[in-house]
């Protein structure tokens, strides 16, 4: 075929013209998801046992519990890891099932914005109680 440009990358000329294709951020996304997953294995176990420990607890017991630097630090790590993991996961689900580009982009951005907001609210609450 004449006129077909030679290319060393696995991307069609049409795909390149449209600017679509790999954003070169896929492995970073993948690794971020696994890293937070690994961190959340012990953190989730700790959190479940904490919730059991605090079932029906009075306000003062919860305040005392969060006032320990150890608890406070673990809660902060848990919050960051959870919301980062959640945001990466829901993004994949949206990208798999929403096919309209604008809706997809809007939904992904909304989830990311909401995750940041909720994570910050949780961090502020935990710091307000614990410090």
């Amino acid at each position, binding site marked *: 075929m004449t006129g077909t440009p030679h290319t060393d990358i696995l991307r069609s000329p049409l795909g390149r013209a449209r600017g679509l294709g790999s954003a070169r951020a896929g492995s970073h996304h993948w690794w971020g998801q*696994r890293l937070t*997953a*690994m961190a*959340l*294995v012990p953190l*989730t*176990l700790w959190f*479940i046992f904490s*919730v*059991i*420990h605090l*079932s*029906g*607890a*009075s*306000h003062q017991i*919860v*305040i005392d519990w*969060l006032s320990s630097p150890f608890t406070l630090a673990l809660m902060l790590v848990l919050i960051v890891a*959870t*919301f980062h993991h*959640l945001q990466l*996961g*829901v993004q994949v*689900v949206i990208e798999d099932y929403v096919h309209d580009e604008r809706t997809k982009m809007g939904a992904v951005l909304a989830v990311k914005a909401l995750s940041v907001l*909720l994570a910050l*609210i*949780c961090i*502020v*609450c*935990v710091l*307000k*109680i614990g410090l």
Partner: protein
Amino acid sequence: MAPAELERCVKDVREALMVGRNSEGKPVRRPLSPHLQVYRWPVSMAMSILHRVTGVALAIGTLMLTWWLIAAASSDPVFDQAQWFLGSPIGLLLLFGWSVALIFHFFSGIRHLVWDAGIGFDAPAYNTSGWAVLIATAIGSVLIWVIGLAVW
């Protein structure tokens, strides 16, 4: 198949493999693949879907965590109200759903991490690990609720 018969069944040359004969020898178009509700659900397929469903459910569940932390960061009466709601039938139902989803996603997530390490990809292994996750979820949920209700 005679060309005339073929022509009646095939509308496009790419469909040549989609025609056959039924038991009476009549040329027919082969049925297309059945849809989702016709398939038997293999455990691997159910596990994959459940991992996503529980993941999304847990994402929504973080609203409950945020709400509880907001209550804990405000006054005694507000927090007491939140604790009362969590102890009510609706609250307990939400907590039960949340805990089962979390325990499932926890074990299923470990199964995914093991795959990421390159282990357990053959059919007998992933069927066994799938059932193991389901059994571990059941045992874990019962155990946590027995301990939880005993403490409460």
